[in-house]
């Protein structure tokens, strides 16, 4: 394993400092924590939004802290949920008197640690609500098990909840909007190469030169099935059919899409994949109104990509297009 780092133990702490150094106009660190909050905080009386999870998904989550999106991001160790005390610091930093929404991805560790933090916050009189993103259609949904994972669809939840909160919506309204996105957003990913967790030092799995993992999450874990590599249009179709069947989508639908790189896959390939999504949706009588192509929710240096689809109505479109100003996503630049 080769990484640009001083040591696995200090990697996250140093990266948190490095993010502040890289984005000082956006981010400040809650001293003694791995919590990053806005430099220019929201006016009092607005709902705060906290997200977080293990590190290794950059730009998630600190990359989305800023105007129009999050108020605080809490970073755990690599691929490890943050601890409740750190999440509590995030909640406190995001609280401007109108309550705090926590956006949690559906992983046992995240859900439980955010739950404990929420209990601590409520005990301190901070009003909170939790939404749990579970957009990954690779995993069967079932109330008898852990259910689906949360992956890149989380970014749409951040954007839409963030835009609403910025407009002054109440905690209940922001929570309901986030849950509405969660009810409709679906994603699925595939990996061409694994990643290496710095502390562990060895790749999380190995693939032959012609093999891919279908249905991977964002923690380096193997997917649901090993398959042969195929041309981009077949890979795109496989992901889109699974997503579309699950929703289900129909001709006439308007869609927003995230073509998300998992880490090592170049934009050159992601752009090609975006083209396949566009062709596929056209062929199915759908309209792709919004496409975000790039790295939004990564899995260290894993090679691969995920696709996310969200059926749109006017209100969702407006919220997705609303201005935002964060390290990783900026919209609404004023021209002269």
């Amino acid at each position, binding site marked *: 394993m080769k990484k640009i780092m001083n040591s696995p133990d200090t990697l996250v702490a140093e990266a948190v400092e490095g993010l502040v150094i890289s984005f000082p106009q956006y981010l400040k660190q809650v001293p003694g924590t791995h919590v990053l909050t806005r430099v220019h905080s929201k006016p009092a009386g607005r709902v705060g939004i906290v997200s977080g999870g293990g590190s290794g998904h950059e730009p998630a989550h600190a990359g989305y802290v800023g105007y129009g999106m999050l108020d605080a991001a809490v970073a*755990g160790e690599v691929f490890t949920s943050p601890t409740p*005390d750190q999440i509590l610091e995030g909640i406190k930093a995001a609280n401007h008197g109108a309550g705090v929404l926590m956006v949690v991805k559906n992983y046992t560790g995240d859900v439980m640690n955010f739950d404990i933090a929420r209990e601590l916050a409520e005990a301190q009189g901070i009003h909170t609500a939790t939404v749990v993103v579970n957009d990954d259609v690779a995993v069967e949904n079932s109330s008898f098990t852990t259910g689906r994972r949360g992956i890149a669809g989380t970014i749409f939840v951040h954007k839409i909840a963030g835009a609403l909160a910025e407009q002054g919506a109440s905690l209940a309204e922001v929570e309901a909007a986030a849950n509405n996105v969660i009810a409709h957003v679906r994603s699925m990913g595939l990996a061409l190469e694994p990643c290496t967790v710095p502390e562990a030092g060895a790749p999380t799995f190995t693939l032959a030169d012609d093999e891919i993992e279908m249905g991977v999450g964002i923690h380096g874990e*193997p997917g649901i099935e090993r398959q042969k590599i195929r041309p981009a249009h077949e890979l795109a179709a496989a992901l889109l059919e699974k997503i579309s069947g699950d929703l289900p989508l129909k001709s006439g639908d308007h869609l927003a899409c995230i073509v998300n790189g998992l880490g090592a896959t170049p934009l050159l390939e992601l752009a090609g994949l975006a083209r396949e999504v566009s062709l596929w949706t056209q062929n199915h009588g759908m309209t792709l109104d919004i496409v975000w192509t790039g790295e939004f929710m990564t899995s260290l240096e894993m090679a691969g990509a995920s696709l996310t689809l969200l059926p749109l109505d006017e209100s969702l479109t407006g919220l997705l297009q609303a201005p935002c100003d964060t390290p990783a996503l900026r919209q609404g630049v004023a021209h002269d």
Partner: protein
Amino acid sequence: MTNADFRQLWLCFGQAAAQNKEELNRLDAAIGDADHGTNMDRGMQKVAEQLTSCPPPTLQATCKMVAMTLLSTVGGASGALWGSGLLAASKVFPDMDSCDDKTLAAALQTFVSSIQQRGKAVAGDKTMLDVFLPATAELSQEVDHAPAASVIPPIAAEAKQWAEATAPLLAKRGRAAYLGARSIGHIDPGATSSALWWDCLGRVMGSSK
């Protein structure tokens, strides 16, 4: 159990976590995210540090210190489960230097119930509970008839087998559940670290006989 024994248990578990860190990561790599060893080791080294630098004076205080330390250093599923489980158990331990066998059994029972409540897993879901449920059930049953010091070592000796028995199971909770049928054939890392904990408990109780 005395507070000294209890402290000894956690120091032993700290050593076990360090020695088995790679192995636990390896198990977690197969069906999870390769960090269970790192997580437990990070937490337990901090616990060992605290136990050495300023050992809490009572069983309750020790248990609460371990709980809070794990809660704030481990993260992940195991941090939340061990942390909130021990926090609940600390309320059963007396604020004294020692407790009787039934209290020990009750504390462990509370630890397990709290984990069940927090994580919603049941027996056979391929989690740490597949070690803790049978172990605490046996303990609760047998502690009525014999001293914990003689009851626990044989239970502890079984723990490794319970952990290994998770291999054929289909994971229903935790990260491994996302793998569906592909989780079959691998031993659960959390069950394995739980067996290490029982091994330590067995040693500590056995030597205090």
